[in-house]
């Protein structure tokens, strides 16, 4: 990343691994459980959060010196709610099928703790460019986990990836199904998302012992 100074680059890379919002800070779990049954929904959710968090961080950062401290939480809420409604309307206009799948969850972006957390912890005390990087970084960190969870849930639960039958056809008994493989319907239920997230946390912490709280 030649464009970014070392300090700025860390804003992007830190949330991807050692300060990941889901696996380390354990924020944004609700949406990670709810929408990861399919890879496509995971990707769209990750992109939507990236848009809202990136733009939201910049807006809050630009306003940080004029926001009255007494109502700063309300101001943050208004900014994120307005952005989310705009994202929702744009999805409804240009990707209607997707907006139907995500409609419940798009509303839940407002309550995604990562967003309020980054506004309060970072954007209120830093300039717009760094806030933007921080927003993108955290959304990427969130998105990476969502995509990993979505990948395993869709692959093992439905035998597909992005809708393509990668393991063969379960009805026609081709591919893996020919030798008796069955889809694990349990993977499609939310509890398995929690277990997959748990496995990611386990792997991450056993590779980097510094992350283990005693």
């Amino acid at each position, binding site marked *: 990343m030649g464009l970014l100074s070392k300090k700025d680059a860390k804003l992007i890379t830190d949330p991807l691994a050692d300060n990941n919002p889901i696996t380390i800070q354990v924020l944004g779990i609700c949406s990670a459980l709810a929408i990861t049954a399919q890879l496509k929904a995971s990707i769209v959710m990750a992109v939507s959060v990236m848009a809202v968090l990136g733009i939201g961080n910049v807006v809050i950062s630009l306003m940080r010196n*004029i926001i009255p401290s007494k109502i700063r939480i*309300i101001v943050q809420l208004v*900014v994120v709610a307005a952005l989310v409604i705009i994202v929702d*309307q744009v999805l*409804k*206009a240009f990707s209607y099928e997707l907006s139907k799948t995500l409609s419940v969850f798009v509303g839940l972006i407002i309550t995604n703790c990562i967003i309020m957390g980054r506004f309060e912890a970072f954007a209120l005390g830093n300039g717009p460019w760094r806030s933007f990087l921080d927003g993108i970084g955290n959304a990427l960190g969130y998105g990476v986990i969502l995509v990993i969870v979505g990948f395993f849930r869709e692959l093992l639960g439905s035998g597909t990836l992005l809708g393509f039958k990668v393991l063969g056809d379960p009805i026609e008994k081709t591919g893996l199904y020919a030798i008796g493989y069955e889809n694990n319907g349990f993977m499609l239920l939310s509890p398995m998302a929690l277990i997959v997230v748990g496995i990611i946390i386990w792997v991450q912490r056993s590779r980097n012992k510094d992350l283990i709280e005693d």
Partner: protein
Amino acid sequence: MSNKTDSNVYTIIFAIAMVIIVGALLAFTASSLAPKISENQRIEKQQNILYAMGVNNNDEGSAVFVDASEAQDLFSKYITKQLVMQNGNVTEDAEAYLIDIKKQKTIGTNNPDERKLPIFLGDKDGKTYYVIPIYGKGLWDAIWGYVSVDKNMVIQGAYFDHKGETPGLGANIKERFFMDDFIGEHLLDSNGNFKGVDVAKGNADPKNENKTDNEVDAIAGATITGNGVTAMIKSDLKLYKPYFDNLKNN
């Protein structure tokens, strides 16, 4: 934070300005995207109606509509007539599928005679389908659907949708395993009186082999949504009984 931003006057002015700016922004977005959104909703209605009469791209276990780009063409091809019943009179209306069922239902609670009842006649492979929109409420919010029947009021296809039923429970009313159960079910009892179809718990016929029992198997954990489906089938489809009686007599 400077002292300036801590004063009450500043806080109030800031709040007012913020509300005005954000309000204007949202109003602008909503009104500039509105035509595109309502076009999407119009196509969705066509897709739903076509789905109910068996024109769809279903694969294996999942319900798939015809492509949005083809919906208009297929709709004109398969739907031969759109009728509206009002107070016993039947008129033709090419825009009948756009009638707001929720609104008509509200009108109907006070003035049953003024309620417009749309019905869509479809023709596929020489067979006539009568597609009827229904509307009701589930556990959290609205549920609705389209049911296609033949002239004896035997269900030929059903599509259900919902606004906010619980994912994995009530939301499953729009899954194939539930919707397909309705196919072949009779809406009338053996004497020809309207009975509807019950979404029944403790059903003696879970494989749904008996099509004349006026029952389909309920979804475990979704009792209230299921009851909502039963209720909207009973209340809304019943209103079309006179139309089918007429059909038979002529």
